[in-house]
């Protein structure tokens, strides 16, 4: 039966993510390989997750903060922290 081999994309997408964080079992690997061969959408999904994570890693490797810098501390908070560090209340 088709659906035995070709389980839903929901499960394929779950495994595509999961393999980044844990080794897949051998049957999971085999079923995912079959699914990816037959499904353009999940192949695109896998590439996109790769694209996102690669971008984050390169950003980190370049020593850039992962996300754009928000404005820093505001003046009031800065003053509050200074006071606390000087031993004030």
């Amino acid at each position, binding site marked *: 039966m088709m659906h035995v081999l070709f389980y839903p*994309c929901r499960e394929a*997408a779950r495994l595509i993510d999961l393999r980044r964080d844990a080794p897949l079992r051998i049957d999971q690997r085999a079923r995912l390989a079959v699914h990816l061969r037959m499904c353009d959408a999940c192949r695109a999904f896998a590439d996109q997750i790769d694209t996102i994570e690669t971008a984050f890693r390169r950003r980190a490797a370049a020593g850039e903060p992962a996300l754009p810098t928000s404005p820093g501390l505001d003046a009031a908070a*800065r003053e509050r*922290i200074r006071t606390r560090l000087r031993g004030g209340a």
Partner: protein
Amino acid sequence: MDGDAWVDAHADALFRYALTRLRRREDAEDAVQETLLAALTAKRDFRGDSSERTWLIGILRHKIVDRIRADARTPVVAESDEAMDWCGETGNWLHPPKAWQGDPGRLAEDGEFWERVRACFAGLPDRQAQAFALRVMDDLPADEVCKQLDITPTNLWVMLHRARTRLRDCLERTWFAPAGGASP
């Protein structure tokens, strides 16, 4: 180095690091203050074999994790599962992903792209964002993230899957294929 000099040299960087992970300004401000106070007390432990900034970030990470754990103990409203709306009842794509154009190497340097990433990241539920920040931005091993967040691996996998699915969906809509937009 004294407290004032630390505030000048490091407070903004510490604050941004904390804000990405804690997401509320007041929480991030408190974490910075706790970090610098702890650093002041522990000054003699600083050995100078790492940079001062690295040492402070290390302390800050502990303060952040303490806060996340404290948060996790207060009951939270169950996070809705709309991240999984992408598949219908059959479990297949409602809007099948199509290949993105462009080179990830270029994306990493594209400031506008990261603005979108930040906007998408801001839309994640807190716990998913924290898991994603530790696992992907800080590149910690999965078991280390579990330890820090005090959650099971299964829990972590579910959160990361939802976070990635949401980020992907958001970036596809707002960056890769904006309706009528002119982005690459």
